[in-house]
């Protein structure tokens, strides 16, 4: 052993293969917060994208303003502002909300709000690009059949947008999973917060944060695997996308990945 190196192999293996219950709880928190925030972010994103495509100028302006604000500021700032800031200013004190047996604590409420609204801005840009890349003739065809906009969206437009949205959506979800590590700053004991807590008790910093990295890697890898299957499912009916659309989607993916 090199002199001065301080690694406890037994500790590492024990925490990796036989993690304490709080680590499982932290991991589970990370997973469900990510999923809920992604789903709510997609709903927000779709609504904002529809605003940006509206024929009313004030809706388009609102959509652009929304994206500008949420993409232009760091998630960390948004998080602290929405939780600590809002509570400190006395707008809202985040009392616990009980749903059945489940208690949604103040920090969790703030976390879900911040992550969803932030994710919504990125998803809005992705949905906007996807809707914009659908052939104009499709919109003529749904109108000519007498379809109302909601019906057309549900059965014709969104299924086509879905296959364009999925690759960048996968990127987004990966970023979101990793982004949940920021929630530790408002006191949420998700994966990162739990690791910090364990670190404070054991001081095995290196071992614990390697374990954290491994868990994040496992989550994002599973995500990548699921994504490939969904992509295959949605491209079952069509020849490959035109190279132009592909390039545009790839560009969007790259742009949205830059945070």
């Amino acid at each position, binding site marked *: 052993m090199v002199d001065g190196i301080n690694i406890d192999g037994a500790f590492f293996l024990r925490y990796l293969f036989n993690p304490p219950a709080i680590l499982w709880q932290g991991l589970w928190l990370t997973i469900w917060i990510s999923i809920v925030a992604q789903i709510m972010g997609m709903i927000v994103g779709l609504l904002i994208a529809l605003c940006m495509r509206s024929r009313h100028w004030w809706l388009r302006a609102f959509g652009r303003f929304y994206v500008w604000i949420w993409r232009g500021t760091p998630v960390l700032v948004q998080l602290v502002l929405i939780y600590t800031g809002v509570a400190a200013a006395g707008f809202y004190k985040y009392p616990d909300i009980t749903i059945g047996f489940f208690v949604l604590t103040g920090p969790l409420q703030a976390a879900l709000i911040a992550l969803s609204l932030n994710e919504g801005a990125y998803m809005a840009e992705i949905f906007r690009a996807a809707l914009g890349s659908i*052939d104009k*003739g*499709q919109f*003529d*065809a749904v*109108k*000519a*059949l*007498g*379809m*109302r*906009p909601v*019906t057309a969206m549900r*059965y*014709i437009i969104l*299924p*086509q947008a879905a296959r364009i949205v999925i690759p960048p959506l996968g990127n987004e979800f990966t970023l979101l999973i990793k982004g949940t590590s920021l929630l530790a700053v408002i006191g949420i004991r998700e994966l990162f917060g739990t690791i910090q807590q364990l670190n404070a008790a054991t001081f095995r910093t290196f071992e614990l944060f390697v374990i954290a990295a491994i868990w994040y890697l496992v989550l994002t890898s599973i995500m990548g695997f699921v994504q490939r299957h969904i992509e295959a499912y949605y491209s079952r*009916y*069509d*020849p490959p996308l035109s190279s132009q659309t592909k390039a545009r989607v790839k560009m969007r993916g790259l742009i949205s990945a830059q945070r």
Partner: protein
Amino acid sequence: MSNTTPSPLVSVEAVHKSYGALEILKGISFDVSRGEVVCLIGPSGSGKTTMVRCINHLETIQAGRITVGGEMIGYREHNGHLLELPESRISLQRQKIGMVFQRFNLFPNLTALGNITVGPVRVQRRREAEVRAEALELLRRVRLADKADNFPSQLSGGQQQRVAIARALAMKPEVMLFDEPTSALDPETVGEVLDVIKELAAEGMTMIIVTHELGFARDVADRVIMMDQGEIVEIGAATEMFSAPRSDRTRAFLQSLK
């Protein structure tokens, strides 16, 4: 020739349409009786496509009125002004007007059968089993019974266009609009699409067809409308117009196609 009914099924009166300063339609008027087939011909940029797109309000108009079955399409008149109807009202109006596009515009996420049933099921809210049976019958009529489960990307242009015709017919429209239905097709598949349209004509379907196929227009049209630069130049029976055009512009256009 068509049997003359007292009131026309489709009536276009003094329709004006412009994009900014560019005037596309400069006061177009014509009537189409029930069961009549009218072909719109003319050089590109003459406003034919825009004209048919106004009939189901895919395009707005600035002045004039268009009625189908006596109902004014897309607008109501208020103190001499046109006020656009709400989207829900226009959607209802469009259900009785079938449309076939130059580029087919089939829904790529649905099979041939799905393309045909989605309108009756999701728009008209009819029973799925019943609609499905009708759709299969329509596919048989356009000679694509074996392609029900194929996606549009697996069909040739001519096949896609025939599915598109079946899709429009499934809504049981009172009138069918065709916007250059064979212009995007390979020459060898033009015939199969024209045959289907001819059969519809023989069955008495009211149709307004934008086309460059003069031979087809001669065969199928009760009347031909020659348009140029946003105006109607000449209206008449195909045989007369093609053999003895009254207008110089018609003569020049016919010459250019020879």
